């Protein structure tokens, strides 16, 4: 039985934490978040690598991947793992697939974050103020 995902986000969803949204919005982690759902190779700090589908990336670059081919630094062989969690600190590189438009991916992810922020903004009362409006 599959454990219930705490952060079960499909590709379009943005993290619900304000703090994480702010961090992602101001760094290149937004690109990795836009890559959720794609297959990539992540190279680790300890010389290992993991190739699989990026399921979820948070603001701290922690990754969850599915259907992963993983080779640890001291292993001479690769193992197939259904689910893998990698701490952001342990990442050295992430290979970006050739077909991916970097600029577009980042812009799309930023739009998703902005959409969450301005959701219901028009309603006035129900609007979520995440930053102070400019004073004239």
């Amino acid at each position, binding site marked *: 039985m599959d454990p219930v995902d705490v952060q079960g986000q499909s590709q379009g969803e943005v993290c619900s934490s304000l703090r994480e949204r702010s961090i992602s919005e101001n*760094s290149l982690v937004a*690109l990795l978040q836009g890559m959720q759902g794609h297959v990539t190779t992540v190279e680790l700090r300890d010389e290992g690598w993991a190739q699989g589908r990026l399921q979820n990336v948070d603001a701290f670059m922690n990754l969850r991947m599915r259907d992963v081919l993983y080779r640890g630094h001291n292993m001479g062989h690769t193992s197939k793992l259904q689910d893998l969690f990698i701490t952001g600190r342990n990442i050295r590189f992430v290979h970006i697939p050739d077909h991916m438009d970097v*600029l577009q991916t980042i812009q799309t992810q930023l739009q998703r974050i902005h959409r969450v922020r301005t959701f219901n903004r028009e309603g006035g009362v129900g609007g979520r103020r995440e930053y102070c409006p400019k004073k004239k």
Partner: protein
Amino acid sequence: MRLILCSNSMADEVEQQPSTNTVEEPLDLIRLSLDERIYVKMRNDRELRGRLHAYDQHLNMILGDVEETVTTVEIDDETYEELYKSTKRNIPMLFVRGDGVVLVAPPLRVG
């Protein structure tokens, strides 16, 4: 600090970038190298040479047409000579996590 990006063909600013062209802080020097080829020295005796497409305040970078060089030193058991070996590899588009970056410079000219 906002994201600073450039497309493959020209330098475009995507996010609200403080519209200053003067160099105020060290990271601005990296901004001058956007869309240029650069040399990145990393931890663990690694070097990258590639085209800088984007960077952020952590020095996370996106590099295109990257050549990675890993240098190892082997010491001969008998003569104690140091033998430097380097392994190279090419990657079309790479995201580099900033905490591994030591320095960023224009590509080194030999001689």
